[in-house]
């Protein structure tokens, strides 16, 4: 049986697609047969971020509608073995997908020997997001250190608890992981930005990792390569850590604290909150 992971957030533009691409590519690098599915019908982007946009012929909707077989629609990545992409449709409307059809696709992926199915959720809390999460075994909740994102994550956690197959059938609940992205340790330390600790306290779920705000992300998406493939960059390395943690390696968290600086630069810039907090 394939393990189904949904990457979700509620709020738009927080880094779900970036994360889905890197988690899927990272899993494949680790040797797991992985497929990333784009659930953002009408606004597909995963293919672009993963650099296979010119090879899209069929998509998730055509498979659900029976117009193409799953094998025809799956795109095999050219750089990473074991990595596959099932794109979303750009032209169809959101109503084209239904629970039953998606269920058939997920099941067939399991019989094809996939280890991981990574579902890139659309933004929002409506049907599209609920379809993407329905069959999930685990959820990666992508959150930016910002009020609206944290609030939406909390609402998504409520949906994961109530509207997924596991919840409805009364099985063991979905495992939820927090991924804080676009994080600036220095700004959090100076009290300008919600800290990872603040977010953990508010949402009360386990921390999977922290991805720093990074130039490398745009640079990677410009070229159509998941940033995890550039593992020497800060964000790329952070995503690789996340993947390894996910599959069971005990790695310490990074990017929680600002980088150590020289004595003088530290002396002349704002001190971390902890130093002076009354």
């Amino acid at each position, binding site marked *: 049986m394939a393990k189904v992971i949904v990457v979700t957030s509620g709020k738009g533009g927080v880094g779900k697609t970036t994360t889905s691409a890197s988690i899927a590519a990272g899993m494949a690098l680790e040797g797991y047969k992985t497929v990333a599915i784009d659930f953002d019908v009408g606004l597909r982007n995963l293919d672009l971020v993963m650099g296979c946009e010119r090879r899209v012929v069929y998509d998730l909707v055509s498979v659900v509608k029976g117009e193409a077989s799953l094998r025809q629609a799956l795109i095999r990545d050219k750089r990473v073995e074991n990595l596959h992409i099932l794109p979303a449709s750009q032209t169809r409307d959101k109503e084209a997908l239904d629970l039953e059809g998606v269920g058939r696709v997920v099941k067939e992926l399991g019989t094809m020997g996939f280890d991981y199915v990574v579902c890139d959720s659309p933004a929002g809390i409506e049907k599209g997001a609920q379809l993407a999460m329905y069959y999930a075994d685990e959820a990666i909740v992508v959150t930016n250190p*910002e*009020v609206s994102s*944290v*609030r939406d994550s*909390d*609402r998504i956690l*409520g949906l994961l608890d109530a509207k997924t197959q596991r919840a409805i059938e009364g099985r063991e609940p979905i495992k939820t992981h927090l991924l804080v992205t676009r994080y600036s340790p220095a700004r*959090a330390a*100076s*009290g*300008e*930005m*919600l*800290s990872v600790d*603040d977010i953990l*306290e*508010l949402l009360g779920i386990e921390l999977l990792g922290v991805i720093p705000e990074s130039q490398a992300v745009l640079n990677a998406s410009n070229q159509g390569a998941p940033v995890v493939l550039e593992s020497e960059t800060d964000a790329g390395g952070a995503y690789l850590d996340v993947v390894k943690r996910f599959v069971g390696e005990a790695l310490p968290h990074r990017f929680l604290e600002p980088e150590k600086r020289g004595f003088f630069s530290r002396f002349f810039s*704002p*001190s971390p*909150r902890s130093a*002076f*907090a*009354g």
Partner: protein
Amino acid sequence: MGMFDFLKPRSATAAIAKDRLQIIVARERRVGVGASYLPQLQQELLAVVAKYEKLDLDLVTVNVEQRDDGEVLELNVVLPEERQAPPPPTTRKKKRRKKKRGRHLAAAANLATS
């Protein structure tokens, strides 16, 4: 607040963000539990109260709270501080008019637990 607060940059607003989130998240978790009719109920109650008082929607809150003895439906209405236009002196009312500031109308009812 420490005595060295002046050393912090002026934009150290994360603490405010956290406080606000704690409140809104707690409220939404409560409302999220089953009571999907609450917004509707709030509208209808408002309509009733508005027959007697000038109100605006922001000042009415409806909540379902979980307590030991079951669920309690709480209605809280903040009444306007003063009337906008006092009636002309000739039409003095015989009734005593309460003149309190920031008056409150609050009600709570136990919901039947099913």
